[in-house]
């Protein structure tokens, strides 16, 4: 089965981040994620969105990818600082440690617009999916 995808582009401003959180929440409800799993995803997303230092342009895009057994979350474009922060151990902000605690897989990609952070969390089968 191919991934279902939801793409959301919002102004890179605090008041709009709630919209992204609600979309993640709606997805969590559909996938039967637990409250804790939803919290983890939202906190991971906030950790990236709310860092002004990662800002590239006036808009940020969040792609949610739903595949059997996992949900992926791509955020970008982001400034190259995100790469440095992921590599820092025991830094005060410890982005890498934080994300690795909150999700199962963290990776970083790059295109001409900037860096894209991909987060992946294993989840139970969604309601309505075959075998669920």
């Amino acid at each position: 089965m191919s991934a279902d995808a939801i793409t959301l582009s919002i102004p890179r401003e605090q008041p709009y981040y709630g919209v992204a959180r609600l979309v993640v929440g709606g997805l969590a409800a559909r996938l039967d994620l637990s409250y804790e799993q939803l919290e983890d995803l939202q906190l991971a997303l906030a950790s990236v969105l709310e860092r002004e230092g990662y800002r590239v342009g006036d808009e940020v895009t969040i792609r949610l990818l739903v595949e059997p057994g996992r949900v992926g979350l791509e955020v970008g474009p982001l400034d190259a600082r995100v790469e440095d922060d992921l590599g820092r151990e025991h830094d005060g902000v410890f982005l890498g440690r934080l994300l690795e605690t909150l999700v199962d897989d963290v990776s970083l990609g790059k295109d001409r617009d900037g860096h894209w952070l991909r987060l992946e969390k294993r989840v139970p089968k969604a309601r309505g999916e075959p075998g669920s």
Partner: protein
Amino acid sequence: MTVAGGRSDRELLVAYREGGDDEARELLIERHLPLVRSLARRYANRGEPLDDLVQVGSIGLIKAIDRFDLERGVELTTYATPTIIGEIKRYFRDKGWSVRVPRGLQELSLRLSQLVDELTVQLERSPTIAELAEAADVEEEEVLEALESGQAYSAASLSTPAGEEGEPDPLEAIGELEHEYVVSEDRAILEPGLAVLDERERRIIHLRFWVGLTQSQIAQRVGISQMHVSRLIRRALEKLRDEVAPARRPGA
């Protein structure tokens, strides 16, 4: 930034930082007040007077001017923006509910806080949104909305009297952390970057991200609700973002 006929930001910064020229500092503050006003306006629809936000943002601007590292090749405005925003956000954090949330949603948010804990014990796992909706006798969308509205509520400060959500005083509870935690405390908790956190926040962050406990495990261990743990974690991370990131931004 250069003002026609005047000195550039860099020249003023050099005069202030290296020559102790206070007039140069005043000029820099005055020159960048429009940036403060512009950033403050972003937060103006959240129930706080714009003038107060400009005043708070100005403190961020002054901090940025005082901390600016001349060796770094960035503009003052680039460096100052996150510091100004950080001050404004901290102001909202200290105010409790940072946006006006309808009473009904506030009540549902508090009710969900209890239900999350009750269902976690009952089900021996974290409940789903559907289970929370059923237990609260509301629609799933209402649960999501209430959870989202809860984001507008800052974690209770350490000085908050005991009894938020009927809980014991978290400070007392955290004093009872088990011995094994104390001995497992590693260097990470002493990391200078975490100095902006108070003792309780450092411990909760340590338990979550170094020891690897889940929110519900921390809640059980510390004796506060899971949602309260969640708020404390969020607040601690916000503090880290506001304090640590702007300070090292020019070197990034």
